[in-house]
């Protein structure tokens, strides 16, 4: 495998409401930031992740290209997924060997519509979507299947909100449980509605070392998916996250920090078990998705936050995880090393 590293990472100061920024206006600051960090003004490949249903407009991601300087034509691609998968595509693209740098970005404004209902539209149209099974309902069903004690969920939610208060990019959310929304989920078990964006720069081989002192090398990256229909799989565990973690080599050496894309408290419990993370691993020091959840950038931010610990020289080996689909259907695991 060709050595590829994350050499720059930036995210917006996320907001809980629509500030009226258009897509190019939302992403331009983070694109500018990673260009400055990396000293690169053009990239061999560009890939983004977003979802048209959040904006309710077809091809809304195309207008975002206005922030890039896409003329003369650039080599560009898009995933209708969290931008963590755009990062995966860029990593694959860099394996070809003909280009050495890639720009990856993701953005989403979930404040524009009703996210619970929008997420219903990702479900299969025959058996689930007609029931109006909304995002909090299917998440609660998974929490019910897990049956974790309330204290375990509270511990995840409390730690996430406390860490989020120390992260300038995420929210200062009240340190209280809140009302029961769909049982067993309480308000603080649920990732907040968020608008925001993030960007990452990848560089191959020695170029990465020339760009930054401590590149975060991707020593392993893999994603696995499970059946879509919720009744066809064991919801209390994540077989796909476990397999992706094995394929990425999470357990080959000590992990300092893991950033897990858990949009609900119980998902963190499932993921910790799937990734077989020992108790001494620092989980989501950023606050995770429970502190800010710019849908379609949240997974990329997990990888970016995990990389940032290495770029800062604070950690040697970190894990970034991203999830997609209902009830952790699809999981991507990245291992980053100094």
């Amino acid at each position, binding site marked *: 495998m060709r050595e590829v590293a994350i050499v720059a990472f930036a995210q917006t100061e996320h907001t809980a409401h629509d500030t*009226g920024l258009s897509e190019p206006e939302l992403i331009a600051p983070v694109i500018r930031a990673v260009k400055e960090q990396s000293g690169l003004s053009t990239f061999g490949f560009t890939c983004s992740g977003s979802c048209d249903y959040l904006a309710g407009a077809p091809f809304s991601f195309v207008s975002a290209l206005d922030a890039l300087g896409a003329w003369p034509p650039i080599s560009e691609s898009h995933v209708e997924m969290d931008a963590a998968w755009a990062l995966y595509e860029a990593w694959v693209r860099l394996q070809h060997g003909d280009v050495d740098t890639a720009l990856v970005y993701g953005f989403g404004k979930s404040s524009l519509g009703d996210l619970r209902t929008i997420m219903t539209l990702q479900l299969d149209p025959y*058996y689930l979507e007609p029931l*109006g099974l*909304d995002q909090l*309902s299917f998440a*609660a069903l998974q929490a019910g299947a897990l049956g974790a004690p309330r204290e375990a969920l509270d511990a995840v939610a409390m730690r996430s909100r406390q860490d989020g208060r120390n992260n300038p990019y995420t929210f200062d959310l009240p340190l209280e449980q809140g009302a029961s929304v769909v049982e067993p989920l309480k308000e603080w078990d649920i990732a907040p509605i968020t608008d925001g964006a993030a960007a990452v720069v990848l560089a191959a081989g020695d170029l990465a070392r020339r760009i930054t002192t401590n590149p975060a090398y991707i020593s392993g990256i893999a994603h696995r998916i499970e059946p879509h229909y919720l*009744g*066809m799989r064991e919801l209390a565990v994540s077989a796909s996250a476990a397999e992706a973690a094995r394929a990425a080599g999470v357990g080959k050496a000590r992990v300092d920090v893991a950033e897990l894309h858990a949009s609900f408290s119980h998902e963190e419990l499932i993921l910790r078990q799937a990734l077989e993370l020992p108790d001494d691993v620092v989980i989501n020091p950023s606050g995770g998705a429970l502190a800010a959840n710019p849908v379609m950038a949240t997974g990329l931010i997990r990888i970016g936050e995990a990389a940032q610990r290495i770029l800062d020289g604070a950690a040697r080996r970190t894990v970034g995880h991203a999830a997609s689909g209902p009830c952790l259907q699809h999981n991507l695991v990245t291992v980053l090393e100094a």
Partner: protein
Amino acid sequence: MPSDPLTADHVLEFPGGYTRTTGPVIGRFLTELRDGRLMGVRTAEGRTLVPPLEYDPATGEPVTDEWVEVGPAGTVTASAWVHEPRENHPLDRPFAWALIRLDGADTALVHAVDAGSPKALPPGTRVRPVWRAERRGHITDISHFAPEVTKIVSPVSTRYRLTASPSLTRFLEGVRDGVLIGCRCATCEKVYVPYRLTCPECGNPIAGEVTLPDTGTVTTFAINNLPDPRAPEVPFVSAYILLDGADIPLIALVGGVPAHQVRQGMRVRAEWVPAEERTLSMTNIRWFTPTGEPDVEL
């Protein structure tokens, strides 16, 4: 000169709905559903998928053309409780989402259950479909599921007319007049209240009436958290009160003190309703209330 931001409402929809073909497998399931039957499809490995898919999610192999009727009853494997149903939900009252393993199936179906309360649907609960009157070949032909009948409620109400015995009548006359009438056994000298005609210990006749004070000591008590028409509030305390000079305690309410402060040995006094409101009834004593005296060693 800040001004309100410009906003506009926007609806994304497919007028008339989005038409989808079902393919042979989902189409067969929905057709059978329209006929009121729940069908599963067998995989090459012999598992029964409900709802049926064209490919076995475990192997990616096409499913077989072997169909089996399943259900209609099934077992809940997990559930979630919706306090506030939303517009698109199957029920307009609080309900549960559940994973339901229909009898004969190896996978679980997701649907709504009209369970009545969030506690009513532990894993293992048996449920059955409630069908819509008009079926059209749609997953919502099942309106929802409902728990199987496992219990019924039988109201019991029979009426009686009681006549007080001579001794009880005598005791209640005392209560009407604001005194507690007890009695002493002529043989063993035990003092009982309420007044009675024979000694329950030695069986001998009672010698005569004894008037007891309306003060006493709590010997034991219970905190009741279920409402009772005879108690003024919940929680309430019912206690054994040993009236001063009696050998047998009387059961009465204790009030005028938080329930958790009531204790054995506590000194109490009867709180009588005003004289003009008294009848031939124990309700003349609202309850016993602490006197404030030091506790008594029992």
